[in-house]
């Protein structure tokens, strides 16, 4: 890839903001107000007036229309607004990629990437559709009680575990690492709620092979971050988190309905991961810390394999609490607690944590973290990834 064709090091995340994270239904504020608060906090963190934000990038069918947001702020102009298709968390890093594209194309000066979720105010993701008829693709699943995300994804993971002899202990290690990291993070909803092996093993089954602790939370809150060009980022308030690569992808016919994607036991990162690393000029061996989207632990299992951190037949050895624990595990994972134990902010909180690692401000800081990576939305279409770095010259 020529230097001109890549975004590597040409833009940065310069501000992050998050509301208090709540259990579902516990936010005192409606979703729109939460988003306004998160964006204002991100602007404050970046050291800019919120009205300087002229671009908006979102994903997952976010309900909070940029035109209403910029009106609420009294902004003078909106130069860009954008939504990544796809209902899951797969658009998290892709929204950052779109924000980068907007500032590099010269459309916008400051693009905010945001996600608001009040599952108390609106519907719960963990519940099935309550409609009398399931039309189209849903007809092939819903009448059989195949309704929720957990139920949809368990079948992919079961097949992966069958193909590669993966054991429940691999899933448990992911859950335990996230909960361990949340114990250092006062923002985490599961702060103060330690998880032991025994608690995991004895927890109720949701859908085999997922125990309760393999599943993400349902929360209320909002998160926002601000992207701008390298030129502006250099002189701003915060240490820039340089975007080394950000991209989306979806493998061959992954959205085939009724569970018919030809490659089934996959997190859908196989085409994206090589492009991501090539753009950044790094490989998995260079990654200092990883935030990997956990809708369910099994998705992390396949994501980590498909990003080249371990071979599929080695997961039982590689997936240990020790390997995933900050500060000195082989691959510190989800160091804020992530979707399982910090907050299910549709994975945008994972990008915030990747920024904090680059700044040196995590509550589970990896010493001298340089290459800080995010994988967004396993098993959905599309998925996306992000590699941040503290040092723009990571590739020499």
């Amino acid at each position, binding site marked *: 890839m020529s230097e001109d064709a890549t975004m590597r090091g040409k833009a940065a995340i310069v501000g992050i903001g998050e509301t208090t994270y709540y259990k579902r239904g516990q936010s005192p504020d409606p979703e729109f107000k939460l988003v306004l608060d998160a964006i204002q906090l991100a602007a404050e963190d970046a050291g800019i007036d919120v009205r300087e934000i002229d671009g908006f990038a979102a994903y997952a069918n976010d309900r909070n229309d940029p035109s209403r947001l910029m009106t609420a702020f009294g902004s003078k102009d909106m130069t860009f607004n954008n939504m990544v298709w796809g209902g899951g968390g797969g658009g998290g890093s892709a929204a950052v990629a779109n924000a980068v594209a907007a500032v590099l194309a010269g459309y916008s000066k400051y693009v905010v990437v945001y996600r608001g979720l009040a599952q108390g105010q609106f519907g719960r993701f*963990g*519940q*099935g*559709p*309550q*409609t*009398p*008829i*399931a*039309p*189209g*693709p*849903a*007809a*092939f*699943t*819903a*009448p*059989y*009680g*195949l*309704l*929720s995300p*957990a*139920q949809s994804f*368990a*079948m*992919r993971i*079961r*097949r992966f575990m*069958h193909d590669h002899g993966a054991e429940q202990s691999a899933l448990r290690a992911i859950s335990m690492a996230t909960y361990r990291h949340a114990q250092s993070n006062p923002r985490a909803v599961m702060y103060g709620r330690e998880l032991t092996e025994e608690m995991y093993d004895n927890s*109720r*089954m*949701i*859908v*085999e092979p997922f125990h309760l602790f393999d599943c993400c939370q349902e929360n209320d809150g909002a998160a926002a971050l601000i992207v701008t060009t390298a030129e502006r980022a250099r002189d701003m308030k915060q240490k820039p988190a340089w975007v080394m690569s950000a991209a989306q992808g979806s493998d061959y*016919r992954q959205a*085939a*309905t*009724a*569970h*018919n994607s030809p490659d*089934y*036991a996959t997190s859908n990162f196989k085409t994206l991961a090589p492009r991501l690393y090539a753009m950044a000029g790094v490989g998995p061996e260079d990654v200092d810390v990883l935030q990997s989207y956990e809708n369910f632990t099994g998705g992390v299992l396949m994501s980590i394999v498909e990003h080249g951190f371990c071979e599929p037949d080695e997961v039982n050895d590689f997936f240990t609490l020790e390997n995933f624990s900050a500060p000195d595990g082989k691959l510190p994972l989800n160091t804020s607690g992530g979707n399982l134990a910090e907050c299910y902010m549709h994975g945008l909180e994972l990008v915030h944590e990747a920024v904090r690692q680059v700044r040196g401000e995590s509550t589970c800081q990896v010493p001298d973290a340089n290459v800080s990576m995010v994988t967004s939305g396993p098993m959905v279409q599309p998925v996306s990834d992000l590699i941040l770095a503290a040092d723009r010259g990571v590739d020499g």
Partner: protein
Amino acid sequence: MSAEARSYLPEGLPRPGPAVDGLGAEFWEAAKRHELVVQQCRACDVFQWGPEWICYQCHSDDLTYTQVSGRGIIYSWERVWHPVHPALQEATPYIVVLVELPDAGNVRMAGNLLGDRTQDVVIGAEVEVVFEDKGEGDEAYTLVQWRVVE
């Protein structure tokens, strides 16, 4: 047969229907006749599932629904313990299987695995289709279910 064999899951779940643009209607009509059909391209013979408006392989829009044997292989499975719909409150655990159809290009269909809800499920086991008639009158429909071939 027991009542459970006639209706594995209780009434009250969403009932199946074609897409709003009509795609898939032939499948549900065939199921009512207790025939298992899969979409097939007349131009290149490839099977595809779920249904699409064109063939993914040759892009022909000359598609038909071909009856297949109803024999399949369990490709993956899950046992659901936590109900996520009011109709399922008393219906857990239940088993959902993903079945590959070797005589339809190995396309897959999801359904319930009838019988003991606590049975061991074996990937690779042979299953056969069971048509489960549900609902009444204008709301009658037939689900495509599976049971292990003994």
